[in-house]
């Protein structure tokens, strides 16, 4: 630790399990999750809130982990992409991603899934246009988005929420 920043103890319910860590108070949520909770599934892509790669759900709402400080979400429930599968079995949404080829390099996928989960849980009628608008904060450089949109629409049609 250098500089004058003090440390803070933060407790987060991560994918249903309580995790407590102590880190400098200016630690971003994405780095806290990776360094304190070893939640390596959360990826960092820009550290400025542009690419959406580090998107997680905080108390059910999508947030970019690089523009959120860990101390701001002390006591909150955080969900990451690791929460979706049931053991080896992919969640219905993940299964659609798998079938359509929506994960290529797989890096944006972690945030993309969580934004999509937020949409699926919202009860909004899911059309391709709605999916595109909802996911506009999650950049993908591999897929051209088509397979992702197809996967989310298909998952919604089957009533999936995760």
């Amino acid at each position, binding site marked *: *630790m*250098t*500089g004058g920043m003090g440390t803070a103890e933060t407790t987060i319910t991560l994918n249903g399990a309580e995790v407590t860590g102590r880190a*400098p108070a200016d630690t971003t949520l994405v780095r806290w999750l990776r360094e304190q909770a070893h939640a*390596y*599934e959360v*990826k*960092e*892509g*820009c*550290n*400025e*809130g*542009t*690419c959406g*790669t580090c998107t997680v759900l905080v108390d059910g709402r999508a947030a970019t982990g690089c523009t959120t400080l860990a101390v701001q979400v002390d006591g909150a429930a955080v969900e*990451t*992409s*690791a929460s*979706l*599968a049931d053991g080896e079995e*992919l969640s219905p949404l*993940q299964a659609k*991603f*798998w*079938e*359509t*080829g929506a*994960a*290529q*390099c*797989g*890096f*944006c*996928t*972690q945030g993309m*899934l969580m934004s999509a989960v937020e949409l699926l849980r919202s009860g909004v009628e899911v059309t*391709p246009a709605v*999916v*595109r*608008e909802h*996911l*506009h*904060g*999650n*950049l*993908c*450089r*591999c*897929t*051209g*988005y*088509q*397979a*992702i*949109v197809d996967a989310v629409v298909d998952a919604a049609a089957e009533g999936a929420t995760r």
Partner: protein
Amino acid sequence: MTETLSSRTASTTRVVNQAVPRRDSHEKLRGRTRYAGDVDIAGQLHARLVRSPVPSARIVSRDASAALQVPGVVAVLFGEDVPNNEIPTNTAGIKGRPLPPSWVLAVERVRYHGEPVALIVAESPRALAAAEALVEVEYDVLPVVSDPERALEPGSPEVHEGGNLLSQWRIDRGDVDRAFAEAPIVVEGSYEAQVVDHAYLELETGIGWLDDEGVINIKASTQEIEHYRRIAHIVGLPDSKVRVQAPYLGGGFGGKEDMTVEPYIALAVQRTGRPVKMVWSRQESLTARAKRHPVRMRYRTAAAADGTLLAHDIEIVSDAGAYPLLSGFVLLYITLNAAGPYRCDNVRVHSRAAYTNNTPGSAFRGFGGMQPVLAYEAQIDRVADAAGRDRVEVRKANAFVVGDRIPAGQRIETAVWLPQCIDAVLEAIGPRPEPSSPEHRVGLGLACNVQPYGRVAWMNDSASAWVGCERDGGVVVRCGVPDVGGGQVSSLAQIAAEVLHVPMDSVTVHFGDSARTPLAGRTTATRQLYMSGNAVLSAAEELRGQLLEGVAQGTGQPVSELTLTEGGVLTPGGVVPLAEVVAMCLASGVAINAMRTYFAPTGEPVTELVDSERIVPDFTFGAHAAYVEVDTRTGQVRPLRYVAAHDVGRAINPLSVRGQIQGAVVQGIGYALTERIVYDEGVNLTGAFYQYAIPTAADCPEIEVAILESGEGVGPFHARGIGEPPIGPCAATLASAVEDAVGARPATLPMLAETVLACVDEGGRA
């Protein structure tokens, strides 16, 4: 939706040519895939570069004493601390002009904004951040040259001693002057394309450590594990003392073809003996890592009255930026592809790459096959218009056929399904949508392209693979391919599963390790499926022969009576399960593994005047069509619907082919409409991701793919490469659509609002 038009009525394969979910995607979806940045080692240090804040300067002094006082800072390295600080430039094929080296850490001079000057190693990223500002470097600012054409003028500031011409290529086929003198149609055009960034989501990242053999191990996000030799040279060790592993990458697109973090990690490990992690920030990646070359292209094209192409006279200037990297080769690809997929017997091309103080240019998906599409597709439209003929018909009439020579001399040896691609996209694009208001105009665009796959012949390219059986009957593939996200590894598993009649799940692939997997070359040049795929095919076929031989020895049946089948070897006496087959092989002294190396066709290096029978292995052709809507008040262009067709020879995995094409189209839409790196006299102003507009899901149209299969590629199962080709036609397709909408055609990329508004004015349809 994906449509497939195949030369074969029915597939005779079980696994290959089937749209199977990729084997890597399951763990990626679960979030369990460990990328290079997801590896931490207890006791690791962190490293960071100090980069030049100015584009051109003499370094007066450097002082690390204050930085070294920061608690946690372990070392600060300057160029003098690097055993071999000079990185030689690979000059193969560019004869007669020794190219200047680049530097691991600049010592006397910086030539671009963001050039590395010092390397800090510390206990924590926070200590690095605190130390960075305290590394004192004094610069004596020198004149900047940031325009490539100005750079080539006499008296311009020299980026390197000896002038700013990095390389030039010429094609001079036929009698161009005579063709122009006699031609009834001559059309001219100037075109310009910008600097763009790869913008993969996974940044340049790696971790290194020293093992018990004294080998520096580096696990990095790289398209090229064989940089281990170059890294060993830099740190002054034998080649065998550096090992590079590439786990699954979070995207590459050419941006991880040159070294990024690797030499710095190696230096820091060597200096400290401890594990060292390095992660570049998005901001330094945007500022300093190599980009796609911007070009200016001037075309004159002559044609007969019916639109038959007679001659091209083409001048191209490319901005190479501050160091050579791969600029000479990219320029060669620009030159080779300058006339597009059309027959033309009289062609003159003069292309030049100039040093400037901008970010170096280097590899980016398309690799020089990309830039000229904007120009040659506009030219053929102008020819068609001048001839009073349909643009589609003129394309089909001029398209290469087997046996034609490209202007650089090589003959086309495999099918050219350009007309079929055009028909496929025009059929699939559907009816013209209605404009959304009286101020909007809708237009239809069409463009075609050709892109080589595989490396140039004088690289003497090869790829090796090992395929073997475990005693339980499982199949193992070892192949040094880096998987950049395109499904390279999954396709190899498919090929092995096909040949050996096993399910995909029973194939394990070890990949991307310079010490422990047979070397297969870099994942670039649309070469991995072609090269490694052929190597795995060959090794698997050899293994198949071994398995049959083992059963022949074990059962006394002749090999001619035996066939591989699901689960084992079919004999007249029934199926011998694979585990038993393996036991029979071992009992009979028959090997159960094979290593094979696939060699690409070779040829002599070309001279500056390019004329050769063999330059590249083969070509991939395609056609795209799109509807766009133009807002005549704002100049905003919105793609409404997009269709892309490519002849892929044979699709090893149609799902992966579709994904490659759709992803390339969106990268191409960004190139066409929004993406650009902006410089102010060499200072890169695009230092944040929010300033660099790659397309979002909301910006993109539905993209339909038509996969055509002529069955004539030179890859495994007659596949062609498809990684790069589909990015080529996008900008030309959208320019053509804008022209159809408003009556005038953008010739400068990206097609910013002011450019499009000028077209609206010129077209007079507002």
